[in-house]
């Protein structure tokens, strides 16, 4: 198609634009999550992530030092003065307006002076310095309340990740997920590769039936298995353990694994396997020394599938693992956080990103194999 003469440039632009639109639609949600997870938690809760590069207007309420506190008041000439900065308690930005009562929190512009009922004069500068001035010494146990409107610069921070990894248990869940995922990826591959070889190249009665059975089992919904297996596990005392979930994931992943690997192994040149047989290799040796190395692409693509599937699984983990610190996996933790911290977006976004970071990295690094596996599995 590249070389066909007379293609319309307008059409090509339309194609480019449509693809840009699609890509934006498909990446924006994740991008928003990523940006949000790095934002200051106070900003995150008051403004959309798309405004994160512009300053945020925020209303602060600060209390000046109480006049009765030691050292709070100074005498400057004829006046008694209390000074300070509205950002003493944290934060930064430019003050645009201030007020002295909650009725009208932005009554005065910076530079103006507000006169209180008792004659005290209050002024706030743009940098947040305030000054309360009175002719007599001021009294009172509580300091004057100041309402300021602040234009905050964008704040990005790693605090959310720090919180999530250290105190919300995501770090622990990360290890738990890893403990589930790695054996639950390798064991089915090993078992499926041996079975795939047997179904492809060994002769024995019942082979056709087994192949049909494997194909049929690919679509069995795993919901089906939950209750019987849960009862079985309780009966034989496996209970909620890692071994239990490894085997469960192995069982659920096995039909597709066997099917994919058998098809691949069957596609290897017959002569190579016969040649090894003439060379005196047994089936085990042929499998280990010839078939396994040659099947690497298929093994890799299934490994990625299974890895993503197990890492991202919630259902099987909820059913076969406990809800305790030692066993809660990341998806389970995320679900818990959605329930208990539903409004705390700084926690949710960071946790979600921690949980999707590994699969995303695997995805981008090994996409080639993933695509190959998908194609082997579904295009005839």
């Amino acid at each position: 198609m590249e070389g066909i003469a007379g293609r319309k440039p307008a059409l090509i632009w339309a194609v480019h634009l449509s693809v840009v639109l699609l890509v934006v639609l498909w990446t924006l949600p994740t991008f928003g999550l990523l940006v949000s997870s790095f934002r200051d938690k106070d900003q995150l809760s008051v403004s959309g992530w798309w405004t994160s590069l512009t300053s945020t207007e925020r209303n602060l309420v600060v209390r000046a030092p109480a006049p009765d506190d030691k050292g709070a008041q100074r005498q400057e000439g004829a006046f008694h003065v209390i000074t300070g900065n509205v950002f003493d308690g944290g934060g930064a930005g430019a003050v645009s307006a201030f007020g002295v009562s909650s009725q009208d929190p932005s009554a005065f512009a910076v530079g103006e002076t507000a006169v209180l009922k008792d004659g005290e004069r209050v002024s706030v500068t743009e940098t947040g310095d305030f000054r309360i001035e009175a002719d007599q010494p001021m009294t009172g146990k509580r300091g004057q309340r100041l309402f300021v409107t602040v234009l905050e610069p964008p704040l990005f921070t790693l605090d959310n990740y720090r919180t999530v990894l250290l105190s919300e248990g995501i770090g622990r869940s990360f290890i738990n997920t890893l403990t589930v995922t790695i054996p639950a990826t390798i064991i089915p591959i090993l078992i499926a590769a041996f079975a795939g070889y047997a179904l492809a190249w060994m002769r024995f009665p019942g082979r056709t039936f087994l192949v049909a059975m494997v194909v049929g089992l690919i679509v069995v919904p795993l919901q089906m298995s939950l209750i019987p297996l849960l009862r079985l596990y309780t009966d034989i005392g496996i209970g909620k353990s890692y071994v239990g979930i490894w085997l469960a994931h192995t069982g659920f992943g096995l039909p597709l694994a066997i099917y994919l690997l058998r098809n691949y192994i069957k596609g290897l040149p017959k002569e190579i396997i016969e040649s090894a047989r003439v060379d005196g290799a047994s089936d085990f040796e042929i499998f280990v020394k010839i078939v396994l190395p040659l099947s690497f692409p298929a093994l890799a693509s299934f490994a990625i599938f299974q890895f993503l599937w197990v890492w991202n699984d919630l259902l099987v983990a909820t059913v076969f693992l406990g809800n305790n610190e030692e066993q809660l996996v990341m998806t389970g933790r995320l679900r818990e956080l959605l329930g208990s911290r539903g409004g705390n977006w700084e926690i949710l976004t960071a946790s979600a990103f921690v949980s999707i970071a590994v699969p995303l990295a695997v995805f981008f690094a090994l996409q080639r194999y993933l695509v190959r596996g998908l194609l082997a599995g579904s295009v005839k």
Partner: protein
Amino acid sequence: MSSVSLKEVGKSYGRVEVLRGINLEIETGELIVFVGPSGCGKSTLLRMIAGLETITAGDLSIDDERMNDVPPAQRGIAMVFQTYALYPHMSVRDNMAFGMKIAKKPKAEIEAAVSKAARILQLEPYLDRLPKALSGGQRQRVAIGRAIVRDPKVFLFDEPLSNLDAALRVATRIEIAHLKESMPDSTMIYVTHDQVEAMTLADRIVVLNGGNIEQVGAPLELYENPRNVFVAQFIGSPAMNLLDATVTATGTQTTVGRADGPAVVVPIASQASDQARPVRLGVRPEDLVLTEAEDALIEAEVDLVEALGETTVLYLKGANGGAGTIAKLPGIHPVKKGTRVRLKADPAKLHLFDEAGISFRHR
């Protein structure tokens, strides 16, 4: 001593019989070629000798030991496949050493065998390459090297040259011939559908057709004295012409009369019972020569001329079962399409076949 012996060997896939009643004695040190059209069962027979297919009838012995149930590795054979079947993930060296490693031979012995084979096949510079970094001819040499390393009693080749281009095919063929000379004690069985390979390489040729052996013999014996119509037409190119005729006189010589030509006296014996029997008179295109004589064997109109320089091939209308007679004349002849030509042949080079297709010489 007979190296490989087949007795009443047959093969069926379920109810489909692809080989039947194969009897063959192959001598030690012989290079025997199985030749025949595609699908006739050559590969199947070879793979049965190798142990890659089960033998469903008869007996196979190698060095007088019954081999029907012996696994391939223990038969003392090595096989070279058409597609080379090199292990793509192993270097040339590892490919050649694989069999000995499986057999747990000592390292030094493996090393010695591999370098010897590499030397014979001039593969030394490539020992550490992967097969994908080799040309087709080199790959085929590695496959042969792998067989040599196994030091087998019998080499089996299944169309080893079919995947090579024409020039390489000739070169590798010559190389195999040299290889055979350098290993006079090895028996080789070579499968091909190409008669040139068969004629040039073989000590003896086995012509297979439809699951049967048609004839076994030295290359020129098959050429000069084919047992039947199939062999006669399969060996030689273009194929032998067959002219319809009827026996008119019998004895030590046979006279046949023809509808489209004069009677011919052929120096082949026949019996009285052959009198009036319909036969086919065979004459090879290269045995025909132009003549002016009135009683020429063939007189016909030229349909097509192929002037190749070295030879001139004439396609004549009629005769030869209606397909048209072919004549292959040495050198250049200024014959035009549409002219009538007369051709004769040395009677000693004629063949006679009965209705069943069997040659009179073989009855």
